[in-house]
């Protein structure tokens, strides 16, 4: 991701993700997700990030600053205003928080640890029905 966009994404991540935002790891997931999209969708997402960044200049409380340069409170207020109006920004937010909750630490914090559960029920299945499954 080019550096200018990265600064926008870092700002976006720190506003939309729960604290701690784990920006580096979330952005790594986000980059991988972008890579799976078709080029047109990638271009659209990047264009939207630029629009979010530059659009802040028109937001009165931003006093002409880009989104990437806003303080936490102003960035949050600006994004809240955008989310209320734009389905596309909502989708962008959805992708970013989705990437955040893909992180093992974020999952663990909310009590979601499927690995041991899957191992246990898979073992039980083999124990009970192994003869039929072979």
């Amino acid at each position, binding site marked *: 991701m080019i550096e200018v966009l990265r600064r926008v994404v870092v700002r976006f991540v720190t506003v939309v993700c729960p604290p701690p935002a784990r920006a580096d790891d979330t952005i790594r997931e986000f980059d991988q997700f972008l890579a799976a999209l078709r080029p047109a969708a990638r271009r659209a997402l990047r264009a939207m990030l630029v629009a979010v960044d530059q659009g802040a200049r028109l937001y009165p409380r931003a006093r002409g600053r880009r989104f990437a340069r806003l303080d936490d409170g102003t960035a949050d207020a600006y994004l809240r205003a955008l989310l209320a109006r734009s389905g596309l920004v909502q989708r962008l937010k959805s992708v970013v928080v989705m990437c955040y909750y893909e992180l093992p630490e974020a999952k663990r914090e*909310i009590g979601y640890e499927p690995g041991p559960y899957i191992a246990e029920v898979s073992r039980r299945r083999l124990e009970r029905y192994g003869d039929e499954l072979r």
Partner: protein
Amino acid sequence: MTIIQAADIANDQHAECGAVVVGTGAGGATMAAELARAGIDVVMIEEGGYHTTGTFTAESVRALRTLYRDGGGGMTLGWPSVLFAEGRCVGGSTVVNGGMSWRTPARVLARWAEEADAVTERDMDPYFEDVESRLHVALQDPETIGRDSELLKAGADVLGWQIVPNRRNQLHCAGTNNCNNGCPTGAKQSMLVTHVPRALAAGARLYTDCRVVKITGSGVLARFATGQKLTVRARVIVVAAGAIQTPALLRRSGIGSPSGQLGRNLAMHPNANVIAFFDEEVTGWHGVHQAFQVREFMSDGIIVTANNLAPPMLAAMMPAHGRELGELMAGYNHVVTAGPLIEDDGTGRVRTVPGAGPQVFYRLTDRDAARILRGVELTAEVMFAAGARRVLLPFDGVPPALTLREVKGVLARPVPKRSMRLYSIHLMGTARMSRDPRRGVVNSFGEFHGRPGLFVTDASVFPTPTGLNPMETIVALALRNARHLVERRHQYGV
């Protein structure tokens, strides 16, 4: 067993065969297996990768990247924009669906026969029986039913609503709740573990990571993800790329339908999710994905289900961000996500936009919007009846509701269509079948009108939405089409 993946090849490839099958989902894999077992030389081409059971994990975003088209983030153009997901891997959407397996309802088949002169219940019954036997369609073992499903049932029982256990294509499903990321035990009888290996065992060849660019006069032209070309000469071409990609492929190949129906009539079964919070710990990721369906309102085009969502998916749906999102997600193990699936009126269209590829245009009709609102209210009602303390509704700008009365209050005011957060995983109808070439794109055996030897075998051919999970219908139609073709194989020179 011949699987040729993009990583295995260095040069352009050429193949000759009796039948080339584009897509390895419910329709394509079934057709390929049947033709191969009849001794026909078959080549399968799959745009996605070959991912085996052992590679499936509970990492949802990884699954979106590797098993779905465009990360599962297709969006319709129109108000509201509906999020839709298509599988893109060997086995297609059967790898990532919930494994619900239902026959086409009799009233839907009656409508297909009457309106489209397509197939009847009598035509289809033997094929349904065959599908159910091959794919082990059965009720779930009781020990695998999770608390979220039990709560849906408890709510429906309190209200006296009809609720049925799901029939699923599974062989002693373990209840890992990982259907949408690929079944990690292989219990789900997806095409990946059934008809694809069956086709390969009968001699079919499979090319993966390879996108069919166009249908030519003598076969298909495709391109691997690594850039090499694949040219296949075939006497029979079977297109089974799903209701979005199938019409797009036919159109970019210069193939039109005199009926004017190619790419039209897209139905999507729009879904909406109500997020219900309970005092008790639900741990909805323990137990099978979607054990029941509320059928009380099916005649009105509404079914209600509970489907646990993994944290990334639930977070994506939450109407909050930052600290507030964190607070909501902290209650993850107390949540049931449930919602209506709507039998829609089918007003979508697939068109290819230069530079952007196939695009889906979809307009939610007033009648469908009313069904969504009613379905959301019914879902909230059943959740409160089960003991929910509050619900989040799938509409922008609406506060959480603590009682059914508050939900009714929200719904009593106009809810703009554009505020509805809808999604779809059932895409149907863009190459509808009819015996009459003026009304349908393909005949009742999936053969393109006016193009002998070109078949379509996926949910594109549905004349109307099924109102239920469509996989069994697709497989049954593919079996029927395959047997028809095999019986007339000499006519096609295969």
